[in-house]
């Protein structure tokens, strides 16, 4: 009750004209950088951080936080329209969002994503406001072994998203794992596969790889298809059909829970809840074959999950003083720059600031959904921009995005190389998503495995002596064994049969 009153006081601060204006500016910038493939929230907050130097602390952080959660709304748009994810969490959205757009239902996909994002985002902020401290303490129990087990589950789910050919999918997934090895090994500090180049010392960057594999490859393939490949269908309504409402809302509910829980774990990323949510939806769907061809739940679940993730990922920051992702690390820097130390004491020393920020996030989410619903139709029309205009735009933004990662020209070359690789993969019918997903998870997998083994003194069975990691690993093992067994019997495993999309 106490926090409720404080939250109301927070609204009082957040609703002043000035703060409202900067909240609007923040979420609008967030939306736009989300839309632009490559230019992510991390870059945007970093660019704007110095500008906030002279602002009031509350106003500055309200704006920067707006960029952070606003970008997740925008990330969906390019996934759906041009099959190029704006950020890591939206890779999954391409699966069903793009087919929906091809059917002329881009508006529906975006509308559902906006509604889901709003629900997921709002629920997780409620969680942040009222039940954060006990949850954060619980999440502290989640160490490298648990992390490793969770990623194993995620990897297993990737197999379920392979596309038509399991073998091709596995090759692509393995390529992703190998690429994740490039750069410095966090445990020994040894540098691997960097070809003697310093810019590769920290490994490849997700943004450059995705821009190349998705964006550039899409352009190259498109050029081959002589520019005017059929007229896209008309944009129909923003809302799902009547019979789609129920499954959609359920998917949003599940996505919210999943995203919220995983956001609590420091060091996790938004890709994990998105993968898990998509796989979950596909598993429980009456007709899993719809997935990959434009299933609304396949957009609703993951998009909700990554927004719920974004809200609860702030819980470790507010309750423990720990920034759990690169963008939040910049927010952390913003607090510090304005003389505030994020962490549990902030609730005591500057309660009005904390609660004003939380209140502003409710307002920001509301602004975003109001902005997005009508705009979804407008964005949908972008799919009709003639390709001779659209392709140069994609190209320009891919180059800018790749450069902005490290302010380094090398990244642009890397992006071009991956563009050619993506083109070849598409020509040879290799799915690209497994590569990107295993690349994101691969580094976490390796580091958490090695860290756990140091904890266990090299004893692999240590994983099974801890309740959470033990349970997760046993389940993964069982699923694997059953699917191998059945595939031997029927020549088609459970996992493999799902695969036919």
């Amino acid at each position, binding site marked *: 009750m106490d926090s409720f009153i404080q939250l109301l006081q927070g609204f009082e601060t957040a609703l002043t004209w000035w703060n409202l204006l900067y909240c609007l500016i923040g979420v609008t910038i967030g939306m*736009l950088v989300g839309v*632009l493939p490559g*230019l992510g929230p991390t870059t945007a*907050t*970093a*660019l704007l*951080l*110095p500008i906030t*130097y002279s602002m009031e602390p509350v106003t500055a952080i309200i704006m920067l936080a707006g960029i952070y959660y606003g970008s997740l709304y925008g990330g969906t748009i390019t996934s759906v329209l041009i099959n190029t994810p704006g950020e890591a969490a939206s890779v999954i959205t391409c699966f069903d969002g793009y087919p929906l757009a091809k059917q002329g239902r881009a508006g529906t996909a975006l509308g559902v994503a906006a509604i889901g994002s709003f629900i997921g985002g709002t629920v997780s902020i409620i969680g942040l406001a009222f039940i954060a401290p006990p949850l954060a303490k619980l999440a*502290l*129990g989640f*160490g*490298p072994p648990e992390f490793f087990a969770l990623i194993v589950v995620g990897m297993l789910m990737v197999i379920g998203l392979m596309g038509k050919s399991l073998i091709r999918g596995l090759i692509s997934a393995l390529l992703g794992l190998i690429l994740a090895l490039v750069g*410095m090994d*966090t445990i*020994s*500090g*040894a*540098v691997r596969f960097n070809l003697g180049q*310093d*810019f590769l*010392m*920290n490994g490849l960057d997700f943004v450059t790889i995705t821009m190349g594999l998705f964006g550039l490859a899409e352009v190259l393939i498109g050029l081959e298809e002589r520019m005017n490949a059929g007229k896209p269908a008309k944009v129909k309504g923003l809302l799902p059909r009547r019979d789609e409402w129920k499954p959609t809302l359920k998917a949003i509910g599940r996505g919210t829970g999943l995203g919220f829980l995983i956001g609590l774990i*420091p*060091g996790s990323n938004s890709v994990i809840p998105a993968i898990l949510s998509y796989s979950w939806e596909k598993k429980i769907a009456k007709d899993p074959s719809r997935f990959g061809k434009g299933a609304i739940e396949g957009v609703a679940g993951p998009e909700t999950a990554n927004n719920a993730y974004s809200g609860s990922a702030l819980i470790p920051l507010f309750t*423990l*003083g*720990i*920034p*759990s992702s690169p963008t939040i*690390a*910049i*927010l952390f*820097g*913003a607090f*510090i*720059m304005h*003389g505030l*130390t*994020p*962490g*549990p*004491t*902030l609730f005591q020393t500057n309660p009005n600031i904390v609660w004003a920020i939380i209140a502003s996030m409710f307002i920001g989410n509301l602004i975003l959904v109001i902005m997005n619903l009508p705009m979804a139709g*407008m*964005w949908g*029309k972008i799919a*009709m*921009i003639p390709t001779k*205009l659209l392709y140069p*735009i994609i190209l320009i933004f891919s180059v*800018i995005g790749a450069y*902005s990662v*490290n*302010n*380094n020209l090398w990244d642009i070359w890397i992006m071009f190389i991956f563009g050619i690789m993506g083109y070849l993969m598409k020509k040879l019918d290799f799915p690209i998503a497994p590569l990107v997903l295993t690349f994101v998870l691969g580094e976490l997998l390796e*580091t958490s495995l090695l*860290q756990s083994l*140091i*904890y266990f003194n090299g004893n692999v069975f240590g994983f099974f002596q801890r309740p959470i990691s033990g349970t997760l690993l046993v389940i993964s093992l069982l699923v694997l064994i059953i699917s191998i067994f059945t595939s031997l019997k029927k020549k088609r495993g459970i996992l493999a049969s799902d695969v036919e999309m």
Partner: protein
Amino acid sequence: MKKKSLKIAMVGLFLLSLFTSGCASQTNSTNAKQNEKASVKFPTKPIELIVPFAAGGGTDLVARALAESMKSELGKDVVVINKTGGSGAVGMNEGLHSKADGYTLTMATREIVSLPLLELAPFKTTDFKFIGNMNRDPALLVVSTKSKYKKFEDLVDDIKANPGKLKFASSSTPSLYGIPFAQAANLKFATIPFQGTAQAVVEVLGGRAEFGLYGPGEVTAQIKSGDLRPLAIMAEERLEGDLKDIPTMKEKGVNVGWAGTYRGLAVPGDTPDEVVNVLEDAVEKAVNDQKFIDFMAKQNLFIDYLNAADFEAMIEKDITALDPIVQAANEQK
């Protein structure tokens, strides 16, 4: 209607691309002109300050505060640019190979010494000319307040009683704090490396690792909230401010010198002396600026000003100090 909204969208995208490319190209334009030999007339245009680490981190904060204060000294903008990659090697290398006219400064952190020693950088530490040091933070040893360790001795005794059993959550690889601590006190403990302090602190808070060694500014929140207990610092002298009661390891009988990080300024080796003098002067005035002092104090970042000659001497001393640590790290590989 269709056409109109399409146009709006296109114009919007175009404006945004202008905005973003504007932000990016700002970086390059400063290098282009200015060929004349820099005389006393310096600076005549904005100065670029390369931070080889991400925005929002400790080095970035010091750089931005310094840039603000130097700006009022020099009368020209000092623009901070984050060039990340290679644990700092990429940004430092770029700073080193920029035009030696004083218009491109580089934040010189301890990595400017450690990376070449670890053979992870394409330059030598001595390729740079050093302008001055602004900040020096010792490593602070912390444990969870839920743990049984109330004093530094409690922890050391427990490590000695259980060799190799206790866990140290390191914020980097190799641990430039953990190795000298182990060597000086002749201790054996398991080092678990994490990428950055945030992840490592979670291990100490979660009780999986017994202790950690971090910069004081990085754990301020957890110390203030009573989740972490500081036990000792790795320095010759005690700190000032909130942490003045924390003993040094030396006081406690562990013969370990200073370990931690420092943040200064460097320029390419053949930068003319006149320019270096102007910059050195500006840095000295900036660190005495009340705005800078207040900012640093708030973040638990400790000001330790050294002029060009002293900073260079300190760097040379650090090369000798880090050498055995790097040797030990290479053996562990």
